[in-house]
């Protein structure tokens, strides 16, 4: 028995804020507004509780969810997963947190989105689902925190941003380094001119690779255990194999991953470079692959180098060794260079810089680059205030498009030019076709 089991559903923002709107005329029966929330003037005060649902909560999702549930103004009410095992795990985890049995579980996320009492959703599926999940959530009136990469093609990233604008939803991409002090500090040095005139930005990326093969077919389990059709979602069909789902071995596949793995880190590191360059509304105009690196250039002449190697303190790569960059500043390093100085930082919070006088503004922080606490808090605040969080749709759109364009250049093995206004490659039809893929029916954006 659960000692603290509550018989009454938790009062949240949505239950008394949204009943009139989402009812959309006579579609839904009006809900009962608890008397205690009625303001003195007869108006309804916005409550402080945000009702949250989650879709595809796995290892990273659990970290983000934990940071949200640690906030007192959040109530996690519903969880969706195509795997029975994960549904049970997340329900167990959240019920234990709240000391009740209230977390509802769903196999089909559309049923979760149809719940009128949810304010916001956390989307932490594999990459293939992020964009469509975000878009359908917004169309259902939910605010969205989506793990990165937020779309596996340029077209989907555009569609996410367009939909968020069109439906006026609060959107936060899971690129939390925008809310981690040492990255903020490095970007501040670049933006404020402390480094002189910026000339080169460096973003760390994975060793690029793209896999087109299929794992051997296995008999499909019952939908209740693993819903393979729903797992695939908008991605192209292929036969079932347990490893994709249970072991999460979908990374690196063209159909499931983003940009030959480039976005795994690039969505973070290129994003910080965009920020440092004051380029949140644009993207580089040229991309040239060279081995494992991609050299890009902005219209203002600033260079952007995407590379897995060459970071301060990074041991020389041995053959077949690690496929990602870890230097003395930790994982996901970035480096900004101007004609009067440079700064390099990464996930462990270390800041390397020159000249040393720049350090006087720095106060050491212990937050790690992977910690989403500040980022999720900002999202929650914006859900209430309707403000724009740091990694909003516009910011995500441009940093993700820059990554995709670089990945496309690498996959094509040739230099490509890009028009940031039209968001299209110049004189390269093949590259342009790579901007989007048809979604598997019946899914559409």
């Amino acid at each position: 028995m659960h000692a603290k089991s509550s018989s009454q559903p938790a009062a949240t923002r949505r239950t008394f804020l949204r009943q009139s709107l989402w009812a959309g005329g006579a579609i839904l029966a009006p809900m009962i507004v608890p008397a205690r929330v009625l303001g003195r003037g007869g108006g309804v005060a916005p409550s402080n509780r945000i009702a949250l649902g989650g879709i595809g909560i796995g290892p990273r999702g659990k970290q983000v969810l934990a940071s949200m549930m640690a906030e007192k103004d959040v109530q996690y009410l519903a969880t969706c997963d195509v795997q029975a095992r994960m549904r049970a795990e997340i329900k167990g985890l959240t019920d234990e947190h709240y000391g009740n049995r209230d977390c509802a579980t769903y196999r089909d996320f559309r049923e979760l989105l149809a719940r009128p009492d949810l304010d916001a959703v956390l989307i932490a599926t594999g990459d293939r689902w992020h964009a469509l999940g975000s878009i359908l959530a917004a169309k259902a009136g939910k605010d969205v925190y989506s793990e990165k990469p937020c779309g596996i093609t340029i077209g989907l990233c555009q569609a996410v941003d367009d939909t968020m604008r069109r439906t006026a939803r609060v959107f936060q991409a899971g690129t939390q380094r925008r809310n981690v002090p040492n990255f903020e500090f490095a970007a501040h040095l670049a933006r404020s001119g402390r480094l002189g005139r910026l000339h080169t930005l460096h973003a760390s990326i994975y060793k690029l690779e793209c896999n087109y093969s299929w794992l051997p077919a296995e008999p499909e389990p019952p939908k209740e255990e693993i819903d393979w059709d729903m797992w695939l979602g908008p991605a192209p069909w292929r036969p079932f194999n347990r490893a994709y789902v249970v072991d999460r071995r979908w990374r690196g596949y063209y159909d499931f991953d983003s940009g030959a793995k480039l976005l795994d880190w690039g969505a973070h590191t290129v994003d910080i470079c965009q920020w440092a360059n004051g380029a949140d509304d644009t993207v580089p105009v040229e991309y040239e692959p060279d081995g494992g690196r991609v050299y890009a250039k902005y219209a203002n002449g600033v260079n952007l180098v995407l590379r897995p190697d060459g970071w301060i303190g990074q041991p020389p790569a041995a053959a077949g060794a690690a496929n990602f960059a870890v230097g003395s500043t930790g994982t996901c390093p970035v480096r900004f260079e101007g004609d009067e100085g440079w700064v390099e930082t990464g996930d462990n919070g270390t800041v390397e810089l020159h000249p040393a006088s720049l350090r006087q503004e720095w106060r050491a922080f212990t937050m790690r680059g992977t910690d989403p606490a500040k980022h999720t808090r900002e999202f929650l605040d914006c859900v209430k205030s309707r403000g724009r969080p740091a990694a909003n749709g516009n910011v995500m759109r441009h940093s993700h498009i820059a990554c995709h364009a670089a990945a496309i250049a690498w996959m094509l093995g040739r230099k490509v030019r890009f028009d940031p206004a039209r968001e299209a490659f110049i004189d390269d039809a093949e590259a342009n076709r790579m901007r989007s893929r048809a979604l598997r029916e019946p899914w559409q954006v």
Partner: protein
Amino acid sequence: MKLLTWMAGLGLVAAAGAAVSPDSGKTRALVRTVQSAPELADRARALQQLALVGTAEAVPTLVALLGDEGLGQYARDALEQMEDPAAGAALRTALDRLAGKPLIGVVASLGVRRDREAVGALARLAEQKDDSVAGAALRALGRIGTVEALRVLEPALGRGTPEVRAAAAEGFLRVADELRIAGQPAESRVLYDRVRQGEVPGPWRAAATRGAILCGGVEGRQLLLEQLRSGRPDLRETALGTARELRDDQLVPALVAELEHLEPAWQAAVMAVLVDLRDDRARPAIEQKARGGAEVVRVAALRALGTLGRAQSIPVLLQAIQPPTSEAVAAAALASLARVGDPEADVAISRALSTADATVRMRLIGVLGDRKSTAAIPQLLQLASDRDLEVAKAALRALGVVTSPAGLPQLISLATAAKDDDVKALADRAIVTTAMKVLEPERRADAVVEAFLREKNPATKAALLRPLGAIMRTMGPRHEVFFVVQAALQDPAREVREAAVRCLAEWPDATPTVTLLTAAARPELPAALRESALRGAVRMAGNVAAGRERSPLDVIGAFTQAGRLARTRDERMLVVAGLGGVRRLEALTLLQPYLDDPEVKAEAALAVVQVAAHFPGARSQPAVRALLERIATSGPDEDVKQRAAQGLQGGGAAGTPKGKGGKAGKAGKAGAAAVATTPAAATVAAGALFNGRDLGDWDGDPGVWRVRQGVIVGGSLLGNPRNEFLATKRSYRNFVLRLEYRLVGSEGFVNGGVQVRSVRVAQPPNEMSGYQADIGAGHSGSLYDESRRKKFLAHASEELVRRLEKAGDWNVYEIRCEGPKVELRLNGERTVTYTEEDPTVAADGLIALQIHGNCKAEIAFRNLTLEELP
């Protein structure tokens, strides 16, 4: 329909411009693959490539696949991408023969292609009973966006199920948004208003309202205000969001005026908007709200002043922290006091400080620290010697943050004058953090050194050596500072001399070793200090001996002298244990006399075999032989006796430790190969990781790891000073490792473990980093992350392990590493499963056996087998 008439010819549809990529050669080859490849995966891949390079030649093959359960979407993708009109025609024709999901797919593709010629067919589908088909058709029409398309969408706004109306609204709004962004606000406003009038589901009504507001002008602003006045939360939220997007110079005054008419919670929400708009015209009203009234409003206003406030806002913020005040109000005011950007604010806060009572004073001191207010330094220095200790401590905390190196002399006088221990510690810390702000590393200690040299008062001089040592430990040692401290050993005042010994005993490198030994020899030195000095010297010499530090120090000389000075049992034990880690033959000579010392002879014997293990060739030297023989025959400890005997024959030693070069290793191996006589060697199982004879395939300290009767043994019941590992020489990724272990121990942290996917670390060289299947000290069956995240990744149930594990006896461990998963089994039962969440964690690495430091324990391993997985 009037609204539609003027829309004709607006050129809504962007012309499809770019050139096609006609690669007939590639297309033909790919089509052949699609038609005849035996593997479905190859056909799918060919279709995906057609989507990038295909020409109209592929159309017949692609059309035939539309509706195919597996490949239908692949074929449609290729048609959707192809700019040739033949692709569009093929998709339109397919509309008639398809149904259900494949039909929806083709409808969506026609929308993506913005196929004007499909409008008629899509209009018919929009009337279908199947909501999902009708909805898809309406959305596609919205993408096409011609006047004809709008003519179909418009009536659908008020017809059918909510799903269909939502799709119609979505399509309609797509057109409206595109028009607005293209710079035609008046025209788009008509479309938005049409949606607003319809019975469309909530999100779309909100979207239409937002669009209409963003069309701008007085009408846009008025519409926004209307939403605020409506009293409906949904409409108000739309207004709040849109207010942040709207570019309208008159919006801020209008919102300020609106504040008065809103309920408290909504006033707070509007103030958050005003903060985001960063407009000084909002400040007076917000200052007014910050003075009092409903708490939710007051808190929001106080918070807003953190961004919008100026020096004139400070009195309002100060008033909010005066008692009586609520915690929420005070917290908001304090946070904003720390943030107000106006430099004049510092002056106002400092002034308030002098008149405030104790509680408020403490809070304001914290604010000055947070503001990094250099103007407040004189005042903070004064407060740091306040009679109220809490005030003094708060001031010192703030000073640690704000003081620049120029203020070091004042901090130093504060530190030396301090009586209270906490105040002393805080002052020391403030000195260290301030000294570290000096840009040139070689000058960081200067201020403290100068003060020390100038100072006459012995107590003050002694006190200054505390922060000086701390600076050295933080920034790294400097020779010139060392000489200053060394000279202090000759100071006429006893308390200065003693403080210098303390300072040098903690020195971060081996420079003071000889100095410390000399100091320890002075008869006047109190016993406790002598032990500190000896401990420091032995630590330093040990570091040099173990290669943790490069130094010209004469290690053997240092140990010789330390041995002469050691009086108590603890001191002699220090020297003996230190010698055990010295990889020099001379250490044996130094150890010899301790074999006759009843209090430490067991440890001395262990140290002898540890040292000797590094020099297998030395057993031919008579002196070494005599020592080992003596231990082998009459040693005080059974294990040590055996190891001495083994040392005489030259068996069981591990391969050379990392970084020790090849020579000793070869010697070790040669010695090991010479005695392949143990019974276990005859029956080495397939997949065995250990050959049952010697440690030639392994890498570890031969003084710690050896083979005893076909079993790998590590550590000693007489003591293990630090962690030691015996590692494989190659990496393993996916595998099942099975082994048996036995851990026995008496004192300290009796523990060991098995590393997987691990690496040796450079410094200190004895450590490893990576996953550890833990053994002992209550952690058997658990997965620890050694030297990396330094925490348990998964802890086994205590009750389960208590039931499974046979303490002090042989236990079977099974470690399975596969992909991101690590699974441990103890005596047949699973104890933990861990799935790696961090993609940056290495997925392969060495396997290694561990004995933990700081314990008296011995660990043994046998029957190690490894089955590699794909």
